[in-house]
């Protein structure tokens, strides 16, 4: 029962693309269900503020004291905040790392729980209890420093963890240095000066404020400038380039060879 002008189907009753369709349905189904059923909950506290420090204390007692102690002395759940300074608070709370939602190798960026005023209030309170690194002056955050010197400093001091393009990198035991492509200038400065978690401290004698401004200038430069060569593939280097050539390059070319050698109609 073969039709000479039509290629008979060799797979019998099943359509050749049935397997592909089934897999696609399965993937879309599970992916869609996951997206549908996971929600992200955000809590919002709005507090009318009196003095900034008072407000900060109230916020602190409500949100931080359980782990960090009512007098910043720390507890088994969280380290002491004596000497961490306003910069630490602005960084940790302002990036959403704090309050910590779950245990893990490190605190991770998640949706910020507080407004900028609230963050500054808590920072002011912590700084009032014991002094530490301050929130950086605006003049270091403008991105008008020397990008070339900043780049050199970045390569020597930062690239080994954060990658030369700030794409992030692995540390030991599940920790990682995050990507820097959408971190604000203030947070970059504060992270350098406070050394959050396992990041070392880069105090102002090690990297001076002007040098920090240069590093911020460099990071802003690569954040804002378009990649000259085209799509950057995440700036992850030869691994992503190799995957790209095998999957898309060879893939496209093999598809073309199948077309090329197929008998024409």
């Amino acid at each position, binding site marked *: 029962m073969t039709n000479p002008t039509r290629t008979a189907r060799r797979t019998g009753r099943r359509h050749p693309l049935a397997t592909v369709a089934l897999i696609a349905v399965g993937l879309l189904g599970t992916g869609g269900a996951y997206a549908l059923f996971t929600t992200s909950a955000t809590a919002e506290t709005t507090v009318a503020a009196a003095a900034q420090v008072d407000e900060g204390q109230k916020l602190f007692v409500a949100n931080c004291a359980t782990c960090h102690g009512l007098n910043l002395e720390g507890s088994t759940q969280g380290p002491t905040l004596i000497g961490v300074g306003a910069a630490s608070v602005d960084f940790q709370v302002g990036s959403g790392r704090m309050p910590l939602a779950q245990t893990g190798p490190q605190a991770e960026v998640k949706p910020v729980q507080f407004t900028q005023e609230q963050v500054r209030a808590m920072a002011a309170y912590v700084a009032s209890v014991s002094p530490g690194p301050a929130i950086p002056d605006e003049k270091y955050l403008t991105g008008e420093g020397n990008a070339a010197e900043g780049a050199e400093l970045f390569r020597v001091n930062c690239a080994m963890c954060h990658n030369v393009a700030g794409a992030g990198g692995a540390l030991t035991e599940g920790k990682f240095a995050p990507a820097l492509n959408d971190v604000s200038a203030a947070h970059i400065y504060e992270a350098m000066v406070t050394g959050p978690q396992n990041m070392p401290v880069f105090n102002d004698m090690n990297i001076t404020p002007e040098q920090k401004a240069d590093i911020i200038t460099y990071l802003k430069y690569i954040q804002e400038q378009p990649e000259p060569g085209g799509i950057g593939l995440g700036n992850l*280097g030869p691994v992503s380039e190799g995957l790209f050539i095998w999957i898309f390059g060879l893939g496209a070319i093999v598809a073309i060879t199948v077309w090329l050698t197929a008998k024409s109609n």
Partner: protein
Amino acid sequence: MSTSTTTPPSTRPANDPPVGRGMRFTGWAANYIDERTSLSGMVKELGRKIFPDHWSFMLGEVALYSFVVILLSGTFLTFFFQASMAEVEYEGSYVPLKGVEMSVAMASTLDISFDVRGGLLMRQLHHWAALLFIASIGLHMLRVFFTGAFRKPREINWVVGFVLFILALAEGFTGYSLPDDLLSGNGLRIIDGMVKGIPVIGTWISYLLFGGEFPGTDIVGRLYTLHILLLPAIVVAAIGVHMVLLIVNKHTQFAGPGRTNDNVVGVPIMPVFAAKAGGFFFIVFGVLVLIASLVQINPIWVYGPYDPSPVSAGTQPDWYIGFADGALRLVPPGWEFELLGFTVSMNILVPIVVLGLFIVVVMLYPFFEAWVTGDKREHHIADRPRNAPMRTAIGAAGVTFYSVLFFAASSDLIATHFRLSIEWVTHVLQALLFIGPILAGVITHRICIALQKKDREIALHGFESGRIVRLPGGEYIEVHEQLDDYERWKLVSYEDYKPLMVRPDARGRISPLERVRAVVSRAFFEDRITPVTRTEIEAAKHDSH
């Protein structure tokens, strides 16, 4: 040695093109050349040579054409690149490196990227073409392996091809080390560390290679000589040998109706194959240029000039050197000892030896299989992989081994992307290095045999057509449609081997090698599905619905 071509009757009336001015010029030119070079002989021999038409036979062409793209783009680059390690202050237009001290090699690469129109395009084209070159060689080797196209008379061509693969790796490595940037410089540092670990002569080889202490001021110039002169010359010569052997042996073909071990069925070089192959060259070239214009590769300006102090997270070599980097990463701690005061670095030697053995096994596989089967006939029909289950299983095991090493090179990126610890990733890969190939081999072997069983079923009983018929007695059956002879031929026309029966030689002895051969041939061929025979077909025809 004339080629005979039998043409089935054409459905179109013959069209002789009219002789115009162009044709007259061509005729004059052809005559001029022939009277001086005997070219007509070659045209006669090769012009209507037949090439079988299967997509998997084009993978070698992908390699060849990407090599041509590499040569063309590389030639452009040599007009602008300067392979000197003299220190200079960068004065080009890339802002974050202005005023920075770097080698002339790096500065000229930056100039190509930022101050020459089309320079970045050519650089990216060159590098993407190199990645595709080696990837297509790999895929081509896999095709040749899994279809058994390395069997007699093509064993020598397999070795030549293997040598080309190694040369391509060397070309790639020397090439990406030329800009003297932080990423490739750290790669050279690793090579230096490995070389120093070689017993007895290591420190001296390192010293000679780098012209003194690492990094020295000679290495980029020396790699340049290798990259644009020595290695390409050997590659071109080896490609020549590879092509000549291909023409002499003619290409293999898959089994099919009308195709035998003694003929080649396909399209003639002129005009169809020339059009397809020539067109494919433009397509490969075009795809590479498309990629080079859309996707960035090796942004050396972000890495900056090489300095022994900084390093980037995510330091990996180009993908084709990944298996070597991965091998280094998987060594457990502490593999080094002292022998009579001399330091023996097993953490370097073991990866080198293991990788060396691996590639030697790859090179020698055709000879191994020929020894097992003892089959000295010429083979021009390409196997379907399922019909050589043990060979396919060994290939799958080899691919798995290589892949584990390859993924090990990106262990830190796997850790960050999948939120795992690098220690866990490393341990899993260490285990997979041993378990993976064995599992892959066993599973593949069983899958091949299962597929052969399915083929046998279809050949004998036809395929399920989806029509359910109710018989008068009430039972339901599914109607099977028989294959016609042409379709069935592919399923039944494969080589069958049986395990060796060991027999004493003329002196009544059985050599240990023969015993080993018997054991190996049992592993290869004991579990096998024999091809369907004529009697079985006749019997099935009587029994079928």
